[in-house]
């Protein structure tokens, strides 16, 4: 046993001990649930109610109708196979989400692995985590501005590349491109992948790894057959973080894509900025439904609540 976070033990088979105090569970979950009721459910219901209202001439009229939804999917079926705006936008958003997810997963896993298995003292782990957190204490508003002097035509990266003679003209695609959007996502969200995976890894008993090694497993085999299966919940949780945030994002796609790349969050934002609340709310409802389905499918693959 090596540090407080490391305590783990032999699994007690399937005979999970009956836990007493089930009534206590309600008290424990109540404040949490209440908060979401007050600051999420009620506001969301208000917004969804608005999505059924009528909107014209800048006036919202409370009246049940489906105009907003109809408008969203106008031409989506009859114009197939060419994609309507909504479908094209969802596709673009999904593509970015998958790219960001793939990169953050590999990177986050590798770094969590390094911190969990190669860095051995808890204070050192904490210090390295903090080191990764510090950049986020400078407001994102400032950091987003700073991407221009970093990746722009006269930015640090282009200057460095030209300085060492790797390129002889500035690379345009470093900024305001799909590349820069994914780069910014990786920059912002790798930590979100890393933290849950790290916590999963911290639960893995060292003796299990040694046993695998003693049994003649190569380190890749150990990784594939022991570590990854045991990290699945962490991976799924990290994936939930990255997918949910990227699917609804509009700030990063907007700024890093030069406002020229579509995302469903951006569509909603543009509509909201023109006070078209009904159609924006309708879009949000559809987005919520689709992403919830994705998450539901993920948790069917790995039930993150089973082995709590």
């Amino acid at each position: 046993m090596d540090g407080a976070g490391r305590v783990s033990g032999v699994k007690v088979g399937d005979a999970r001990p009956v836990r007493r105090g089930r009534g206590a569970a309600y008290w424990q979950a109540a404040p949490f649930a209440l908060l979401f009721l007050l600051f999420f459910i009620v506001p969301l219901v208000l917004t969804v109610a608005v999505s059924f209202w009528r909107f014209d001439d800048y006036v919202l009229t409370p009246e049940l109708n489906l105009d907003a939804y109809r408008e969203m999917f106008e031409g989506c079926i009859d114009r197939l196979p060419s994609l309507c705006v909504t479908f094209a936008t969802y596709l673009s958003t999904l593509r970015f989400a998958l790219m960001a997810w793939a990169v953050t997963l590999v990177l986050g896993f590798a770094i969590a692995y390094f911190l969990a298995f190669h860095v051995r003292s808890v204070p050192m782990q904490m210090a390295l985590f903090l080191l990764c957190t510090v950049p986020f204490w400078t407001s994102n508003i400032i950091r987003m501005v700073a991407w221009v002097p970093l990746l722009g035509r006269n930015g640090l990266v282009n200057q460095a590349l030209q300085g060492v003679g790797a390129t002889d003209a500035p690379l345009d695609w470093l900024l305001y491109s799909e590349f820069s959007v994914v780069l910014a996502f990786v920059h912002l969200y790798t930590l979100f992948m890393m933290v849950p995976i790290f916590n999963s890894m911290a639960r893995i008993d060292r003796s299990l790894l040694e046993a695998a090694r003693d049994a003649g497993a190569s380190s890749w085999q150990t990784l594939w057959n022991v570590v990854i299966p045991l990290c699945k919940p962490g991976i799924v949780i990290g994936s939930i973080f990255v997918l949910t945030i990227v699917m609804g994002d509009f700030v990063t796609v907007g700024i890093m894509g030069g406002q020229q790349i579509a995302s469903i969050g951006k569509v909603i934002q543009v509509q909201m900025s023109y006070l078209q609340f009904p159609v924006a709310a309708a879009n949000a409802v559809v987005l919520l439904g689709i992403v919830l389905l994705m998450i539901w499918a993920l948790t069917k693959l790995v039930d993150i609540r089973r082995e709590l």
Partner: protein
Amino acid sequence: MNRDGDRRPPAFWWLAALFSLFVLFLYGPILAIVVLSFQGPSGGLTFPMNGVSTFWFSKLWQGVGVVDIWAAFGRSLRLGAVVMLLTVLLALPAGLAFRKRFVGQGALFYVAVASLIVPSIVVSLGIGLEFRIIDDAVKALAEGTGWGFLRGYETAAGLYTSALGAHLTWTLPFGLLILFAVFNRFNPAYEEAARDLGATPGRTLRHVVLPIIAPSLVGVALFGFTLSWDEVARTSQAIGGRNTLPLELQGLTTTVTTPEIYALGTVTTGLSLAVIGVALAGVMILRRRRAAASR
């Protein structure tokens, strides 16, 4: 650190190199910020550099910008601290509850996840609408009853009401899900043992569970603070009167923006790194002493 004395495997060096590159990547924008914060008085926010000086730091120090950055800084710091505390205090019991079975468990889980999905501007608008209803109700009450303490009532929306709630809907799902990872395969044998020895659930939690998960809780707290500190979209319609720091900064970008904000970034980063360095050194020294004493 290498207490076992065994040699580092090659994988260590590869991963250490990757980690270093990752940190470099994370600090990329900060690098540009630090360099550009040392410009002369006519400097802008992009390259080419315009002279070298500490002009913008003195400007920041005097706080003579368009708006009061330090007041906003203080508000955000206090709000962040409250959010951090509440994130732990609400997410931990919820995490513990999820280890048992209760009706509505699945629903609560999906609500928390939904809170991450719904674009923040939509949530923010909803909270704004909600507080307007509350305000109208209170005003009607004030007019109706003539109660003195309600006179001059403006709005219930504010930093520690609507904004705090908005922040928590953002930080709590992260807190809860990270705790899922923490409690995953958490061996109940320890709790069983404590209980068998006659410990109450409270004592078991305090003396057995908490010490084991303490580092992870610190992580959750850190997450909570960082998310709150940087939150913009969800707060934008739910802030009421006075802005948080990121909102104030965003407002500033609508007019002449100077390297003062870069100086702020440099100071924040420098101070944070210094504090972490000192804390780490302190812990290391403490540990060494303790180890020496126990030997």
